[in-house]
Structure formats: C-alpha cells, structure tokens
C-alpha cells in the first residue's frame, strides 16, 4: 500500500534570508552600501523555517566598493539554548565579486524543519561594502537576538562562541533551495 502524507500548508518558501520573519527589522532605516565594521567580525542571524530546504546556494548583496582581494564566508549554524552552536555548512572563503549585485556560492546541505537556525557571515577586512540596513546605535540588532563573535582570524568557526550583537550590522544573508537565483 502506498501512503501519501499531506501537509495542509503545502511547501514552504524556497529562499529564506536573515531579514525574513521572524526577524523584525520594520523600524530600521532603508538598506544602503555599508562597510563591514570590523575585520573578521562574525554576525549570526536567527531564522526559522517551517519546511525543509535542500540548500544549493548561499549569498549576500554586495555594496558599491568591492575587490577580489576581499573575502567573505557565509554559513549556517545549529540552534542551541545558548545561541548558535555548530557550523553545519558554509561557502568557505569566497572572493568578493561584482559591486551592487547579489553574489552567491554553492552550498550543499539539507535543513530539516520546522526548526530554527542561525545564518552567519564574516568579512576579512573593513573596506569591503555590503548592502545593509542602516545602523542606529540603539541595540536594535541585539534586541532581535542577533549575535556576533570576533575569532581573531578569518573564516567561520566550527563552533560558535557568541555574544549578543554589539554592532548594528543587519544584512541579508541568503539561503536558497534553488540552484539558479
């Protein structure tokens, strides 16, 4: 006998970003090209998904100043009662590409659901620009549960050691179940 299991909600979204609900950036200023504030700073953004995603790509939106000598690493971390935990997948070190467009890199990992994860991103310098919502200096990222870490070197750590975000860095880290985006 073949059994078909139905989810009355149907499938969830194929592309999820760090700015999607349950993030609440509704009060932040509009996005603009902004330098990464500290070299090797890692930002962790909580996300929630209701359906599994077979991640094919991760990405971000470049700002107006880019260079192939600048490097970015974007990844996915598990959720623990103490914040981001273990690195599940990442783009690894990726040279920054074209200005003012979305940049993606291949990632292969399946996110089970429903569940919460953290999307992470780090940049190896403070000249590189990323498209971000404007900083307000009011702890608004911290009040959304966003975390950060300075590891002392470039790259996403295998295990996060987060603190509550002290920097107002709200950018759009992208996970895509579609291979073309």
């Amino acid at each position: 006998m073949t059994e078909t299991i139905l989810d009355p909600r149907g499938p969830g979204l194929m592309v999820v970003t760090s700015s999607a609900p349950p993030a609440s950036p509704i009060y932040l200023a509009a996005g603009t090209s902004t330098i990464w504030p500290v070299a090797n700073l890692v930002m962790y953004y909580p996300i929630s998904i209701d359906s599994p995603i077979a991640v094919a790509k991760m990405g971000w939106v470049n700002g107006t100043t880019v260079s192939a000598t600048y490097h970015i690493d974007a990844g996915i971390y598990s959720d623990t009662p103490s914040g981001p935990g273990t690195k599940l997948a990442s783009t690894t070190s990726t040279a920054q590409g074209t200005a003012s467009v979305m940049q993606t890199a291949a990632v292969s990992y399946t996110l089970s659901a429903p569940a919460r994860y953290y999307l992470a991103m780090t940049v190896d310098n403070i000249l590189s620009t990323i498209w971000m919502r404007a900083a307000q200096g009011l702890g608004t990222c911290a009040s959304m549960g966003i975390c950060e870490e300075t590891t002392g070197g470039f790259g996403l750590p295998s295990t996060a050691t987060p603190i509550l975000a002290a920097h107002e860095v709200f950018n759009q880290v992208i996970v895509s179940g579609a291979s073309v985006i």
Partner: protein
Amino acid sequence: MSERVLPARVAPPAIFLSSISPDTSPGRELPNFSAPTLASAAWAATNRAYYVPFTLRSSVTVYRFFWSNGTTSATTKFQVGVYTDTLKAIKIGTQTTAAGVSAPQFDNIADFSLPKGRYYMAMHGDGTGSHIIRGANNFFQLGAAGLVAESSLTSGLQATATAVAYPNNYLPIFGLALRSAP
C-alpha cells in the same frame, strides 16, 4: 493508496520574541502603516503598563524577559510579564532598576514553558527618568492592533490586569528571550 493529513508544520517564533516580532499584533499590523523609526524616549508615564498581544503556534521555553534600554539610564524600575488572553498573569518578572544604555537588559526569571495559544506580554515602568527604545506609532494604530494599557499601578504588574484603551503614541521594545544566553 491512502492519504494521511499531518498537522501543519509551524516555524518556531522569533528567538527574542519582542513587541514588534511578527508573532505579535504590532509586528503584523504596523508594516501596513507608516512605521516610524525607533528612538530613545523617556518612559511615557509613571506606573503605566502596556500589554501587547502575541500568538504562539508551538510551545516554547521562556528563559528570560528583556527590554531595550534607551540612551538615558536613571532609577526607573522596569518589569516584564506574560498574561493569558483574558489578562490573568502567568509569569511576572522582578521590578529591576534600569542599567546600561542602548542595549537590551535581561530579567533572568526561572525558566517556564508556554504552550501554543494567545497571550499578552506586559511591561511596566515606575517612573519616567529612564529611557526605553520605542516606536512612536499613533495610539489609534496601536489600539487597532489590539494593544491595551493600564495606569496607576503603584506596585507594578498585578495578578489580574484591568486594561483600558491605548493612551499614547508609544510602543516600547521588550519581550521574551527564548534562549538562556547570550
């Protein structure tokens, strides 16, 4: 062949379930209006409490309460709690003097579980010296989103709230932390 319908999958709520998270009424309603930029402002009235409706579609563990301190820290004591949809207290935190600026402050209450359901999160301030990060949405928009308030609470949040219509253009940022740290 048979078919079996499973319960709908539900994404977990925001890890810091705040008064502007999508799980709350203002988080859903205010993007449809002209949402103002957040700013630091003095607590609106001595011994006033604000109640913000929210919905949980799955059970959660609440580890801490929090509020977002503004740019001026004085001697005001703040308090956060959770109420049923009939405004009966489920958990009331400790009245705590504001400390620090432009960052969240936490009240590390004993962990407790909240099953799926409809609730209010509540915040009380006993004075107007300290600042909170808040939206200055029109009070009628906040009222239309289901927010209510209560005044003259000289002893802080009570076991039963006696709420009235929303009185002013003031939406403080506060809520429930669904993780223990950071």
